[in-house]
């Protein structure tokens, strides 16, 4: 479905492919110069085009618009990135897949609480929607804050979207009422249910999830798995029971052809244990001693709070995997952080044999054959992952340096307030984002969230190496309010200890949706919103 819409920046019309996705960025060439755009923004600050627009609503051309009176309170739309996930969730927009397929484009002014919202002859937002929005806020302070931000005089910035307001006016909220009744979240223990699912205590399987599971089953039952289809399906999360096989397939470890699978698996597993036989004894050699020593002291420190990883048997598995990988990749060798990356694979492949409570499972109770298979599969899948991001760990870690720079550049375009706030207090991106890149956000999120995140990373073409950048940007903007309330450099402490302990699938889903939107809008548009 082609939807005409307009560039937020130059107001040039273009088509988006589907309503379900964020609009692609404007590719108008040449793009109007910054000064022209800036002038337009100053003159017509009320120009706030929705992300999703039918393109048919009356929109005056800039040069036909009456002069904006000075001192007039102009409506301001809260940009997408100023909104917290929490608010969005309660308004019922989960992943973008849940967006209603037809959304009447609301007037731009509809998002503004100011009574002068009738500017440009557009109707005011219905009262009911406004109340609903207030009620939906978790805390009264949040409400005040929202009002404060909304009613702030427009500073000349063009805001990007008011698609959320569309949702509050559109009559699409009924099917998702369930989510609105979750203001108090149950407290989730630190390591609860690491391998799955909703932290909110939602019922284990809804009709939608059931049908997804069936789709997975169908897809995986065919003699030649359609990997593109599988990627599409996996993007929004893989059901727990389908995850081990899907991960093996998506990482490129397992062939799509079913007949070949057993053979390949056997060959690969034998190959891994061949490595062990051949090289593992060299850990005491002069040139490998330091590598092994470092791994050996890091393993007990990997996931220290989860009992599973304190079992000697499990720690030995990790040591072997990491040591073999390290000596086979001398350009990077073992770098702290890589130890974390084994964990999700190990847990997912182990979960094939464990019904509940993976974190307390006794590995020794498992048949030796299964133990060996888990170990070999974890090794190969981790190797595949690292192949794509090896420059993160080579000398001077160029991959990370580049990505942190890219993050900085991206944030300066998507959220100038946050960016300039960091500059003001001399917080450097490298100071907090280095770890985000080096450990793929594993230190910032509970393990269950990392596993869900990796469903998508493996479904994306360059998930770990490229899409991760947009996830980091979305993750940073998620803490926008906290960042902007920083009063000095010490705000960095907050960024080092983000409160994500209660996060589950819902939060990660929203994070990914936002990351997708950012990627869609900015990845191929290096000049979009450049200042």
């Amino acid at each position, binding site marked *: 479905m082609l939807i005409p819409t307009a560039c937020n920046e130059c107001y040039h019309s273009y088509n988006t492919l589907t309503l379900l996705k964020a609009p692609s960025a404007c590719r108008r060439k040449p793009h109007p110069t910054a000064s022209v755009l800036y002038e337009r923004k100053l003159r017509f600050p009320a120009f706030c085009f929705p992300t999703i627009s039918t393109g048919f609503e009356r929109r005056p051309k800039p040069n036909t618009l009456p002069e904006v009176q000075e001192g007039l309170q102009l409506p301001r739309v809260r940009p997408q990135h100023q909104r917290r996930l929490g608010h969005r969730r309660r308004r019922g927009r989960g992943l973008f897949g849940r967006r209603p397929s037809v959304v009447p484009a609301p007037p731009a002014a509809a998002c503004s609480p100011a009574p002068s919202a009738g500017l440009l002859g557009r109707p005011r937002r219905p009262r009911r929607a406004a109340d609903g929005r207030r009620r939906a806020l978790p805390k009264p302070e949040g409400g005040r804050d929202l009002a404060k931000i909304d009613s702030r005089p427009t500073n000349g910035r063009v805001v990007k979207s008011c698609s959320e307001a569309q949702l509050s006016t559109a009559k699409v909220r009924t099917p998702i009422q369930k989510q609105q009744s979750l203001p108090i979240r149950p407290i989730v223990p630190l390591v609860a249910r690491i391998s799955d699912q909703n932290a909110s205590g939602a019922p284990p399987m809804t009709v939608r999830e059931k049908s997804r599971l069936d789709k997975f089953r169908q897809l995986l039952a065919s003699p030649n798995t359609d990997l593109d289809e599988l990627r599409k399906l996996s993007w929004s999360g893989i059901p727990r029971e389908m995850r081990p096989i899907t991960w093996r397939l998506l990482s490129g470890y397992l062939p799509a052809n079913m007949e070949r699978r057993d053979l390949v698996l056997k060959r690969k597993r034998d190959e891994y244990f061949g490595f062990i036989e051949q090289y593992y004894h060299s850990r005491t050699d002069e040139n490998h001693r330091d590598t092994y020593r470092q791994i050996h002291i*890091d393993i*007990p420190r990997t996931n*220290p709070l989860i009992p599973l990883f304190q079992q000697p048997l499990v720690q030995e598995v990790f040591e072997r995997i990491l040591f073999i990988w390290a000596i086979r990749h001398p350009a990077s*060798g073992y770098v*702290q952080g890589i130890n974390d990356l084994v964990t999700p694979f190990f847990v997912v492949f182990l979960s094939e044999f464990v019904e509940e409570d993976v974190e307390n499972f006794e590995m020794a109770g498992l048949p030796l054959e299964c133990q060996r298979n888990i170990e070999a599969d974890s090794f190969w899948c981790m190797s595949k992952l690292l192949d794509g991001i090896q420059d993160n*760990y080579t*000398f001077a870690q160029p991959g990370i340096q580049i990505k942190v720079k890219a993050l900085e550049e991206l944030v300066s375009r998507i959220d100038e307030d946050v960016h300039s706030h960091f500059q003001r207090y001399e917080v450097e991106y490298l100071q907090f984002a*280095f770890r985000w890149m080096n450990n793929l956000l594993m230190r910032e999120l509970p393990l269950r969230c990392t596993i869900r995140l990796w469903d998508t990373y493996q479904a994306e073409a360059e998930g770990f190496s490229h899409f991760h950048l947009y996830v980091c940007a979305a993750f940073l903007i998620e803490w926008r309010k906290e960042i902007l309330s920083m009063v000095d*450099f010490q705000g960095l402490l907050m960024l*080092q200890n983000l409160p994500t302990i209660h996060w589950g699938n819902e939060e990660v889903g929203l994070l990914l949706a936002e990351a997708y939107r950012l990627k869609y809008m900015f990845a191929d548009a290096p000049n979009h919103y450049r200042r």
Partner: protein
Amino acid sequence: MEAIWIYQFRLIVIGDSTVGKSCLLRRFTEGKFTDISDPTVGVDFFARLVEIEPGKRIKLQLWDTAGQERFRSITRSYYRNSVGGLLVFDLTNRRSFEHLKDWLEEAKMHVQPFQIVFLLVGHKCDLIQLRQVSREEAEKVALAFGMKYIETSAKDTVNVEESFTVLTRDIYERVKRGEISIQEDWEGVKSGFVPNVVHSSEEAVKPGRRCPC
């Protein structure tokens, strides 16, 4: 209300992997100790106020660096903006003691054109049985390096406060004597929020106010 301090010092904590840098800092800033913690990746930040004289507080910005070699390219950029450092080794690990010289050279190379005041810290002094470095030996090395030496234990809270205050006081004295001065584009020492009264008395001893000719 924002606490008032006269100076802000930026300190860096360096040393081999698993000598206990993060534990030392966590004990000092949060009063907590955990037996096992994740290895530090890149650089972590901590902060605390210390009172060196009644009414005179100094804010410490503390940078906890990763010990692993591969992270040097990241950690070395922090030397330049530090005025002081804790050079930590593990009393139960001879190798970490032998590497001290490398650490010092690394620091000296990257701190230019500024200088950095170091304190040598022998950590994990609670593990008497496992000790591999004697006090005398460590003191001799400290003397050769031209720095003070202290033995600490984050587990038993031995000398944790002292190590940081000794270093802070050392730097403070040098600032007072004018050996270290506040400079633009340098984060090592900054003058802080001072009420006017205190400020004027500080003004007299404030270094770097020399005749411009």
